[in-house]
């Protein structure tokens, strides 16, 4: 466990040492801030059935930075070590492969958390200033943020896998982005298909981040997405572990 934390510490330090980290954080705050402002404007336009939490997590301004952040967070982690050859130093130290893989993945999750943590402050401020609860109940915060983390874990795992597949950060970023968009568009299909009865519509619901987020940010808890994201994350991490080992053995 000590080794895991040493590796994890290194990942976090490395992430926050590159200028890219601050560029991403800056623009991220900018866009989410704008998103929050847009939500407040929406609520100001008279009667509305949505809450602030719903308005925040269900706009284009949310999905755009959300999906775009993953390639930027994960593209470096494995590709850079392979390109610079430091993987050789790393893997000849007495550490186990899974420690390295998990530490790197955990580093990404940590950065993702740092990216989103400030958004919670918006809701606190909203409550302080406006005096209205931004969510309908505690459930909508818990739902929205747990869905954020669940989706984040899955997409970060995809990003790490892409990064482990190549020595080139750009290639890793493009693969990640393509994979996430693909999943996203499958989910989008559920809006195009007839509303009820269709098997396809039912099936696409399982993949639709938008639908999942809509439900969860209303405080509706559904086990299906939870199982979907957790099991997919595990599957991708499993693949990542094997790709990582295989690429080294081929080297």
């Amino acid at each position: 466990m000590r080794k895991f934390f040493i590796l994890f510490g290194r990942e976090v330090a490395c992430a926050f040492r590159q200028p890219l980290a601050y560029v991403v954080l800056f623009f991220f705050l900018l866009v989410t801030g704008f998103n929050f402002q847009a939500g407040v404007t929406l609520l100001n336009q008279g009667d509305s059935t949505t809450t602030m939490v719903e308005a925040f997590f269900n706009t284009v301004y949310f999905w755009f930075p959300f999906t775009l952040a993953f390639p930027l967070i994960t593209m470096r982690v494995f590709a850079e070590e392979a390109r610079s050859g430091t993987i050789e130093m790393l893997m000849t130290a007495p550490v186990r492969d899974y420690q390295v893989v998990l530490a790197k993945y955990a580093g990404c999750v940590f950065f993702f958390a740092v990216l989103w943590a400030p958004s919670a402050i918006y809701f606190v401020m909203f409550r302080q200033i406006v005096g209205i609860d931004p969510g309908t109940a505690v459930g909508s915060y818990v739902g929205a943020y747990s869905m954020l983390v669940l989706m984040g874990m899955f997409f970060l795992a995809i990003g790490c896998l892409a990064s482990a597949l190549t020595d080139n950060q750009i290639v890793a970023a493009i693969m990640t982005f393509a994979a996430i968009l693909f999943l996203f568009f499958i989910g989008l299909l559920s809006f195009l298909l007839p509303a009820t009865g269709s098997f396809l519509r039912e099936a696409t619901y399982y993949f639709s981040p938008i639908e999942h987020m809509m439900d969860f940010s209303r405080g509706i808890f559904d086990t299906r997405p939870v199982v979907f994201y957790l099991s997919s994350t595990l599957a991708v991490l499993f693949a990542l572990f094997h790709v990582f080992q295989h690429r080294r053995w081929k080297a």
Partner: protein
Amino acid sequence: MVKVEKLTRRFGSVTAVDSVDFEVGKGEIVGFLGPNGAGKTTTMRMLAGFLPPTSGRAEVAGYDVFSQSLRAREHIGYMPENVPLYTDMRVEEYLRYRAALKGVPRRRLAERIGDVVELCGLVEVRRKMIAHLSKGYRQRVGLADAMVHEPGLLILDEPTIGLDPNQVRVVRSLIRNLRRHHTILLSTHILTEVEMLCSRVIIINKGRIEALDTPQNLRQRLGRAGKILFDAVVPDARAAAATLRELGGVKSVEFRADGDWTVFEVQAETDHDPREALYNHAMENRWRVREISRPPVTLEEVFAEVTSGEEGR
């Protein structure tokens, strides 16, 4: 300390290392000598536990490098070729990270890092970013990293490649000082380096071990037949070459003109040194001589000699 049996590594249809056997005893400095692509790096990577072999086995400090990889890695300090380092870290910070990763207990971290920083001459750069260090310093950071956890075995892949002559001297003297505490396996394609540092030499070519001997024996073996340069003013080069061929111990003579001088390249017979005979011959004929020398053997000649010897058997 190291025991290698029938170690083989294939990359697709290419056999990089072909059934290699050798042993390294405690406290030895063994040099891996070979041209680029000979299989030095592949062998070292396998020993360091980075690359699994296609077949065969290797043991370090009594632990199998593959089935007990973690235990074995604890006893190995490995410095890869070109020394990849995390360039965003400072020297001391990097060594602290590496030491902790390699299991140096927390209370001993400061002491160990202080020791290696001093030993490797990194005191004045200990707070510098690795990105801003010269190649020579990076090499020394790599060396410090390799020995920070006091491993029994140091594996150094081309420790002096790409350094300027001064830095090469520094790194070599560093390695020489290490031999008291570590067994060292280093690779190089510089023959003199092996002679200066190693107690034994493994010559490897095309994935096979061509020779395994002490540098002294190797030099003797190579010294038996060698080239001699003989530089003199002679009236008739062709006639002179003919008389030189008559001398004992001379196998063949070639010559070229260099202004008034003629440079003879004399190939000596095995186990003969005709330099004295050449000198006497020149004196008898009253030739003016400016050089009689035996140029140091080059790596190409080592291979020519070693491999031709193998074939002749």
